């Protein structure tokens, strides 16, 4: 599915002394099987932006388009099933007595048959690598396990776009790698993924396109190598290293991902 935001504006507490313009006309899109990485500092409007993708927040101006259809014309439940939103620290919303029941919450709300619900729960738990936890209480799990279960709870709706707000914050390195693997798996099955993070190294590894948000505006959007080499203050370690080498006279192109960069550096050493 293609999700498109056009000139989205958002104002918090309009008409009061606390009025803040959080988004000032943001436009971007993500296509099927594509990973869009959104980066930006704190207060840049990232979290406000993602809440517009399933209209949990209504824009003060602009449009959200789902496969070229205005999202406001869709039923809320339909929109929220198609655009799955995983908030920052999603484990704070776990509530059911067992992991299985918690993941079944969303499909149950969709009114599916019991057999279909069972299939969805099994599949989503398998995707996040948490099938062995299904009978445990979500409150007795480790932080990393809770995060997996919470993400499975959104995957169980079968979203066509998955929006992840800072999904790796507070996770150990192994869980981070698992999560990046999950994002690649979903992309390969045609799901669109929006990944919000301020860890540029991590975004560089999975994103097909990058958007930099600053003070509620899009500062740059495009391919990772275009965006990162033009915005050194947001560049991942690989890009900073290569840019420094290029500056001293070498020319090893514009690799972004770790393996590409290694290959480029290996070529340099052989040559």
């Amino acid at each position, binding site marked *: 599915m293609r999700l498109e935001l056009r000139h989205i504006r958002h104002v918090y507490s309009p008409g009061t002394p606390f009025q803040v313009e959080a988004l000032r006309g943001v436009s971007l899109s993500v296509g099927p099987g594509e990973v869009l990485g959104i980066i930006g500092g704190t207060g840049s409007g990232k979290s406000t932006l993602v809440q517009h993708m399933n209209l949990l927040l209504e824009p003060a101006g602009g449009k959200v388009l789902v496969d070229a259809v205005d999202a406001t014309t869709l039923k809320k439940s339909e929109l*929220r099933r198609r655009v799955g939103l995983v908030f920052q620290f999603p484990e704070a919303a*776990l509530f059911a007595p067992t992991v299985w029941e918690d993941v079944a919450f969303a499909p149950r709300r969709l009114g599916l048959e019991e057999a279909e619900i069972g299939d969805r729960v099994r599949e989503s738990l398998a995707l996040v690598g948490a099938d062995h936890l299904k009978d445990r209480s979500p409150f007795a799990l480790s932080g990393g396990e809770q995060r997996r279960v919470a993400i499975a709870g959104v995957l169980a709706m079968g979203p066509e776009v998955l929006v992840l707000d800072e999904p790796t914050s507070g996770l150990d390195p192994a869980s981070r790698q698992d999560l990046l693997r999950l994002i690649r798996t979903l992309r390969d099955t045609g799901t669109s993924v929006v990944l919000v993070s301020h860890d540029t190294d991590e975004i560089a590894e999975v994103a097909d396109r990058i958007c930099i948000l600053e003070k509620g505006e899009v500062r740059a959007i495009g391919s990772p190598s275009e965006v990162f080499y033009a915005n050194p203050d947001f560049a991942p370690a690989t890009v900073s290293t290569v840019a420094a080498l290029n500056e001293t006279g070498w020319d090893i192109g514009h690799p972004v991902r770790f393996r590409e960069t290694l290959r480029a550096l290996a070529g340099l050493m052989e040559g």
Partner: protein
Amino acid sequence: MSVARSFGQFYPVASPLHALDPRAKILSTAVLLLGLFFVDSAAGLGLVAVAVVALVAVSRVPPLTFLRLLRPVAFIVALTVFFQVLFSREGETLFAWGILEIHEGGVRLGLFLGGRILLLVSAAALLTATTAPLALADGLEDLLSPLKKLRFPAHEVAMMMTIALRFIPTLYEESQKITKAQAARGADFAEGGPLSRIRTTIPILIPLTVGAFRRADELAEAMESRGYRGGEGRTRYRELRFRQRDAIALAATALVLAGAILL
């Protein structure tokens, strides 16, 4: 940030009432609340009402905002008046229709009781509107401290109040976040009757409670690691000082009340 005002909310402006020692205000309010039950004439209530209106003027809380603070209890006042008027059988009959009879004494009693509740609530609202929550807790602790001799945990009670007040906005914010997260999973909080409404709040209440317990644990650890060990020998950052004006305020309240009881 919410701008909605409700009963018990602090209204931060500078006024002579705001500047009074919280203990003077708590004592005056307490005296007034108790004394009001001994006022048995309409003239007495009138005198107290004049005093309360004057105090609202002095407090610099806009009158309309003050009325809005009272709105949550308007229903109780209305209910009291309604039942008194309907079920009291004293005095002349003013109106009769079938089994429905309205008597003169009922109307009088209804208005009197309604007025008394309104004044009770106004006095309490005036206290909370002009006293910052922390000052209120400090004042209460100080007033309750003589009870420490009877092993009453005055400091602990005040600390609990302070913490509870501090965490209201935090928990509110947390509940908003959880509500959104569940809405993203298809929860719909607007639909159905009261029973299904209660059911739909379970996915919010459980995580909120779990989170509150976690926060309480963390706060206890943070307090311990900073050396907190209860009220014993603890000094204050803000020292309360009972000045002449506080004594005058207290005396004036007592005087008005005495006048109202005698009237």
